């Protein structure tokens, strides 16, 4: 279905751009290249791609990169996000396969379903990084059945508030919030 795709590879974690001025978009090589690749320097009219999809590993550092990238877009190109162009690529968390069939599962429920469908002793592989997925597998994940999570700006919180809280200076409030909501490994395993 996709007529054309292009991949822009980031080198390492991007800068936390919260609280910085637009100057950084020109000074930071990575940001400058993203801006040029999307052609949004002078507004959304010239946007070259309808969907800007953030694809990261499904591990904690991947979550961090999502935060950093989304912050960059919200900080300097809020309209890109508000108009619904920014998406998060969901990659499977598990591959369940037996000799006949291979299933990619995006959640714990799907994994359990696959286990009942495929019977005894299927091989289960857990994907945490994009690097763990072979090229021929990967083409399914960005093809017809691509799963995308849209980034939706709702009115319950202002963008400014969200960014200040999560990406700004550490505050006693935030420390309390973190400590009270810490996810232990067991929590994460359950969730997966």
């Amino acid at each position, binding site marked *: 279905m996709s007529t054309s795709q292009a991949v822009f590879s980031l080198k390492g974690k991007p800068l936390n751009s919260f609280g910085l001025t637009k100057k950084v978009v020109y000074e930071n090589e990575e940001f400058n290249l993203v801006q040029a690749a999307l052609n949004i320097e002078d507004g959304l009219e010239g946007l070259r791609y309808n969907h*800007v999809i953030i694809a990261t590993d499904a591990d904690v550092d991947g979550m*961090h990169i999502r935060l950093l990238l989304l912050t960059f877009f919200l900080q300097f190109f809020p309209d890109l996000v508000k108009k619904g162009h920014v998406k998060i690529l969901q990659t499977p968390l598990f591959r369940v396969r037996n000799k006949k069939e291979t299933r990619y599962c995006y959640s714990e429920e799907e994994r359990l379903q696959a286990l009942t469908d495929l019977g005894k002793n299927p091989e289960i592989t857990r994907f945490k990084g994009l690097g763990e997925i072979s090229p021929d597998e990967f083409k399914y994940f960005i093809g017809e059945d691509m799963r995308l999570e849209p*980034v939706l700006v709702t009115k*319950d919180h202002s963008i400014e508030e969200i960014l200040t809280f999560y990406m700004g200076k550490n505050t006693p409030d935030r420390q309390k919030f973190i400590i009270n909501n810490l996810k232990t490994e067991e929590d994460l395993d359950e969730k997966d």
Partner: protein
Amino acid sequence: MSTEEEHSEEEELNQDEANSEEKEELSVELIEVGDNGVPGGGDDNIVSLSGMYEEWFLDYASYVILERAVPALEDGLKPVQRRILHSLNELDDGRYNKVANVIGNTMKYHPHGDASIGDAMVQIGQKELLIDCQGNWGNTLTGDGAAAPRYIEARLTKFAKHVVFNPKTTVWLSSYDGRNKEPDNLPVKFPLLLAQGAEGIAVGMACKILPHNFIELIDASISHLRGKKVDIYPDFPHGGMADFTNYNAGLRGGKVRVRATITKVDKKTLKISDIPFGTTTDTLIDSIVKATEKNKIKVKKVEDNTAAIAEIIIHLPTGVSPDKMIDALYAFTNCEVSISPNAAVIQGGNKPVFISVNEMLKHSTDRTVDLLKLELEIRKAELENQWHWASLERIFIENRIYRDIEEEETWEGVISAIDKGLKPHTKHLKRKVNEEDIVRLTEIKIKRISKFDAFKADETIAKIEEALKEVQGYLDNLIPFAIDYFKDLKDTYGEGRERKTEIRIFDSISAKKVIVTNKKLYVNREEGFIGWTLRKDEFISDCSEIDDVIVFFATGKMLVTRVSDKKFVGKGIIHVSVWKKGDKRTIYHLIYQDGKGGASYMKRFDVSSITRDKEYDLTNGATGSKVHYLSCNPNGRKEVVAVKMRPKPNLKKLRFDIDFEELIIKGRGSKGNRVTKDMISKVEQKEVGGSTLAARKVWWDDVVRRLNDDGRGTLLGEFRGEDKILTLHQSGNYKLSGFELATKFDHDLISIEKWKPSHPVAAVYWSSVKELYYIKRFLVESSSKKVLFIPEEEGVELVVASTQHKPKIKIVYNKRLKETKHLKDKVEEVNDIIDIKGLKAQGNQLTKLAVKDIELLATVEGEEWPVEVFEEPIAQIVEEQIDETVSEELRKTRSRRCRNTFRRSS
């Protein structure tokens, strides 16, 4: 560098330079699709932006806090460190392993980059406690990195094997891929976290725990076990000096000041021999160069001779005081650093807690006791099993129960026959005989039965019983057992781990007092400008860029302000000078007219404290007041002025003198004394003289080891002009110094006093080559350098030295030797046994007999130096033991004792 822990392992969300571990694959997809198409799967679970942020943020923050940057309270390790140690233990065969292999093995448990594991491992190695390092592991002094992991090798130290591991008491978890088992926590029986320190930046919190002293930690653990309060202070591997006054037990909000050890080599050279924690010689030199570039200090050349020990040589340009320079280095460079501890640990694997280092120590000690108890219980159970089996085997063979099975045809029959056969003999056993035991009995080899020796079997059982009794004894006396365990740790591994950082209380260094004066102060009186760029205007004096300046105006107003390049302060300036806070020796003389046509007043005052940039009125405040005369008198010098009156009928005295010496010095706010109610036409200075102020009283503060004039410590006396301070040193030197408050004194100082040239010094020294004590008296000769007053020979050691009027020494003979066994201790009046001779004289032999102690006795009352108002300090020096080879350690103790004694006597 040991303090930049986990450099690649931590990052904060809002950190500028976020570095990733293995993030080469991530990408932003730029996808072009048709106009109407939203690609892909269902959007059933719509998550709002704030929901996304919250989820991702908590995922990341939780992980970084719990699994990366903050150590566990239980074993004091971060996950990467725990996995490295577990790997080292797993691979341990007594030989060195290539670090690259250890890293690879660690990755079975730690699914992260090899570089970050390698860095973490080098940091553990550099702490020289757990890893025995082979090859170039870098230099923490210079900051040079380790060689590549394929070159360097590692194995666990004996200490690590002793205190860190025990598979029996370890709780095991499945590794991330389920292929291996890894420890939940390592059963560390030592306050490892406090010994090694830890640093990590997580999200929403950070952790900074400073390293503490190995021996002191063990002592503190023992104290805690004995129910005493514990109070521990950091100790840094690089030594130096530190002020822990505000340590705050390592909690957030505390502050530790650490200083390099800087010594004067000579008038133009300083040597840095210990660098502060957290610095390297490279960063230290950088900070010195930067301070030089900013004109804060003046340095000619810096040399780095660091290899095994730190040594930075600083060459000073001529005219720079080395004492002032030492203070300036502390004030403006990394020679003094301030460290903010921030104790944070993870308790129970899921809860960050912020507890003091003392609490951590108690926790660790209590856990050690629990682990020791667990070990003992396991040992007890093993012994009980052994005992049970040995007893059972004995019954089985002695009573020939194996014969009972000859008739049996079924397996069940065999079992029940043995069971039946055993029954009458098993009453004394501690537990029931079960089938497992019986099966095991059936497996006994015939050879064993035929060679069975009842006597030997009894012996084995007795041995087991003995061991059991011992273990039970330990269990019943768990706390003494734990104390013995800690004592054993100290004896076995404590050697060479003595405190390295000297605990001190630092005086605060005023930057203004030590900064170089590199600017020139100019004034434009009429326009009302001051500053260092007004080169065309009137030059006042040299100044530094952070100096304050005092300005007086014709209106009688006064102002103190910070100097700058060019600053408007107000028109009509009559006096400008650099102002020093707390200066009570600069006295201003003022004559002013109170209001237009009013009477004139005179006053003498100092300006020692003031609010910057606030205008003060020195007159009585009436409008139209004006200043007739103002002078600034350094050191409170005398001044006589001539007052010329405006002629007026009936005014007889048109000229008269005012001697300001007769006026009492008051505060700047006083009204002053009336000079005349008539109009003054002119005031002129007539003569100035010497100081009217008292000689400077100087005190010695033994805590910060500095001179002061604030009355802290011992009064040394009143000083003026060329008066000098005499210090005697353990090295056998004396030194004469001026009484400038910035003067620094060497560490081995044993006495300090005002020098009186007629007072001789008495000294006893020991020559280990000749095995004799010598005594001498001499007069101190004026010299600007250190002067050695004991012979410059090998093995010569100063024993006592004194400047008392009539010093007495007590000679304690060695009672262990035959010839001196019955000799009573002898008290000698030094003045009676030796005359004053030259400085270089060898002196007389004190005695030929074997001596244990030489003590200097306190002067008896009434025997102080006559005509002295001020009491002489009395040095009392006690020698523990004089050996042919006085060890370095003993020398240290001795000089410390000398210092203590001195403090007491003052």
